[in-house]
């Protein structure tokens, strides 16, 4: 999840490119751009009505909706950031792919999807309107639209920075090319085009990145060889245990506790993201019937469980395989150290001292005996470094294309979700209620153009204002937890009232922001918010989400008790106890959603036990 991404990549900077691509790699990249634009033009003729443009005609199969659902979340920031996290924290980083995703995805498919689908809403704010009224919808829609624009800008700029580091391309060139391509294919083909490209990207990511763990494992002597070398190099086997060392904050490198992982990540953040974030829910709403809509997240869960193979494993492999030119093990360093030493600043020496770099290497960097940009690589450069190690001409182009595709589909997802929410939940109810269908399609297309333009500005703003990126990451946690509280209360408690929904959402958001500001102004507050004074930012995010969710639920409960609820007849299709779900067509047992969800849960449990 973007909002859960480990240290932001925007900051990383070095002068010399990691990879040198040749003509064959350029052809591979150019073919990808040609393909996405071809898809955009091909789909233009099939995106004329608002239902076609914003909801892809609601005719996606379970497989396409499921792959798109997972792919919308599988951006390059995610891939590179979590590979870097695996280098730092070991297999603990896998929590964000398993407990941080699988239960929530299955819950969406089995329990929540029928309500989204039966209510025929176009968006998550649209559901809030049906359940709680206009105020709740506008609050959710405006905050979501802002997030999407900002994240689209962050994605665009992050891609440009990565292309500069990996390939030496100029920032402006990367931004112009990616913005033009994304605008063209989303404005032409709408959500259908975005979904097509997400499925394409999913295949590309596996085609481009799968070789790294395969070849790495071969070179490391298989899983047992990798394990033995990590224990030898790092002096601990903690890197292979997901739960064993989470009994105390200080016992694991992530500085978190299992309660934070289970309640904050596994419940609030994960359920908040996978079941209420319209960016991913929109993909499932495009399914062609209720059964496909329920099956899509279940199909997606199997692929999500497999992603650590191409993200976490390369991070672990790099702990033993990355070498300097003299054959010694290459130590990667934190983002801050690269920033402090490239170009050289007065903070470099202090920053180097905090790393595990050998003293001799630190001295060489400080005395400029070696160029810092060639010696210092950040954790987030793990994936490109591993690609360069194993992928020759053509294959390297495929790997780089996978990263570009990840960035572009991330941006396209942000922009297509923004366009839908802007048109249906802001423009239509607040600005022009009586427009024709073609008018709203035109507004949607125009909002994509304007959205991309504003994203570029937002991207430059984030890049130039130091520290803003931290706030962008935090922004997600401000809204997601309260939104989850409001939607769960609305779906499963018929007594929840419209004023309670709006107030709960508002108070939840304000409380989350207040906790964030409190900790920023007074670091000692971490002991209250995260229950541990030395908790990491990541742990603080998990606990803040839990408190914000709890506050939202309590406020909705209390306000509902003193306000008048909607008549039960008006809650049909919106609330669990007031809805008779349509009977689904008969299918054999092996096509039943429950069967596949049970299998997914069994694999999920087995994986957690295996890597306990």
């Amino acid at each position, binding site marked *: 999840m973007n909002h859960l991404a480990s240290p932001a990549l925007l900051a990383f900077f070095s002068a010399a490119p990691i990879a040198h691509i040749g003509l*064959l790699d350029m*052809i*591979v990249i150019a*073919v*990808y751009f040609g*393909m996405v634009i*071809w*898809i955009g033009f*091909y789909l233009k003729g*099939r995106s004329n009505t608002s239902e076609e443009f914003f909801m892809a*005609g609601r*005719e*996606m*199969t379970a497989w*396409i909706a499921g792959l798109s659902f997972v792919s919308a979340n599988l951006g390059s920031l995610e891939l590179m950031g979590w590979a870097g996290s695996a280098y730092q924290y070991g297999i603990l980083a896998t929590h964000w792919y398993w407990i941080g995703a699988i239960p929530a995805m299955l819950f969406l498919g089995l329990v929540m999807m029928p309500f989204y689908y039966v209510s025929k809403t176009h968006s998550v704010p649209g559901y809030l309107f049906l359940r709680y009224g206009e105020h709740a919808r506008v609050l959710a829609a405006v905050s979501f639209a802002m997030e999407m624009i900002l994240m689209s800008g962050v994605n665009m700029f992050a891609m440009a920075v990565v292309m500069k580091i990996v390939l030496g391309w100029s920032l402006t060139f990367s931004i112009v090319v990616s913005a033009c391509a994304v605008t063209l294919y989303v404005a032409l083909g709408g959500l*259908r085009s975005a979904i*097509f490209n997400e*499925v*394409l990207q999913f*295949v*590309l990511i596996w*085609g481009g990145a799968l*070789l790294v763990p395969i*070849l790495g494992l*071969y*070179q490391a002597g298989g899983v047992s060889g990798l394990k033995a070398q990590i224990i030898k190099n790092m002096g601990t086997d903690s890197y292979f245990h997901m739960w064993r060392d989470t009994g105390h904050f200080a016992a694991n490198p992530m500085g978190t506790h299992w309660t934070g992982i289970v309640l904050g990540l596994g419940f609030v953040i994960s359920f908040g993201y996978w079941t209420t974030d319209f960016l991913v829910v929109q993909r499932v709403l495009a399914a*062609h019937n209720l059964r496909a809509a329920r099956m899509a997240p279940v199909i997606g869960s199997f692929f999500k469980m497999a992603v650590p193979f191409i993200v976490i494993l390369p991070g672990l492999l790099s702990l033993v395989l990355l070498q300097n030119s003299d054959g010694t093990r290459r130590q990667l360093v934190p983002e801050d150290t690269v920033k402090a030493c490239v170009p050289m600043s007065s903070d470099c020496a202090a920053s180097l001292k905090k790393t595990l770099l050998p003293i001799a290497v630190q001295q060489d960097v400080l005395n400029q005996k070696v160029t810092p940009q060639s010696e210092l690589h950040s954790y987030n450069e793990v994936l490109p470094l591993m690609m*360069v*190690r*194993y*992928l*020759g*001409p*053509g*294959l390297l182009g*495929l790997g780089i294309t996978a990263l570009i595709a990840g960035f572009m589909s991330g941006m396209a997802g942000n922009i297509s979700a923004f366009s839908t929410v802007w048109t249906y939940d802001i423009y239509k109810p607040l600005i022009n209620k009586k427009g024709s269908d073609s008018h709203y399609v035109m507004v949607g297309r125009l909002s994509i153009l304007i959205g991309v333009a504003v994203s570029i500005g937002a991207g430059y703003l984030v890049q130039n204002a130091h520290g803003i990126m931290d706030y962008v990451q935090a922004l997600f946690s401000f809204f997601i937890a309260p939104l989850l509280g409001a939607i769960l209360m609305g779906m499963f408690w018929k007594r929840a009232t419209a004023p309670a929904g709006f107030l709960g959402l508002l108070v939840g958001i304000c409380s989350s922001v207040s906790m964030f500001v409190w900790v920023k102004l007074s670091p000692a507050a971490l002991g209250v918010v995260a229950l541990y004074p030395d908790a990491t930012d990541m742990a603080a995010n998990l606990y803040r989400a839990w408190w914000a969710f709890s506050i939202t639920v309590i406020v909705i409960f209390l306000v509902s008790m003193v306000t008048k609820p909607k008549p039960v007849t008006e809650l049909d299709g919106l609330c669990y106890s007031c809805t008779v779900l349509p009977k689904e067509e008969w299918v054999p047992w092996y096509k039943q959603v429950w069967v596949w969800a049970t299998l997914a849960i069994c694999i999920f449990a087995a994986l957690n036990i295996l890597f306990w």
Partner: protein
Amino acid sequence: MHGSGIQIWFFIGVLLLIYGVLILGYGIFELVNGCYPAGVQLTSLHTPIWWGGLLTALGALYCIKFRPGRA
């Protein structure tokens, strides 16, 4: 996707086929000439040949199975 027209799987097939042919072609060139890129590990495994071959086969399969106009 449901309905008529070109399916996404066909686009994927075309892309994999192009990539497969390019990478396999380079792999064969590399093998015949014996010139391997400097700094790349495990060149003795001839990765471009088997990976390129796999992409070509998958791409061709998808192109045929999901070709436009196929009932």
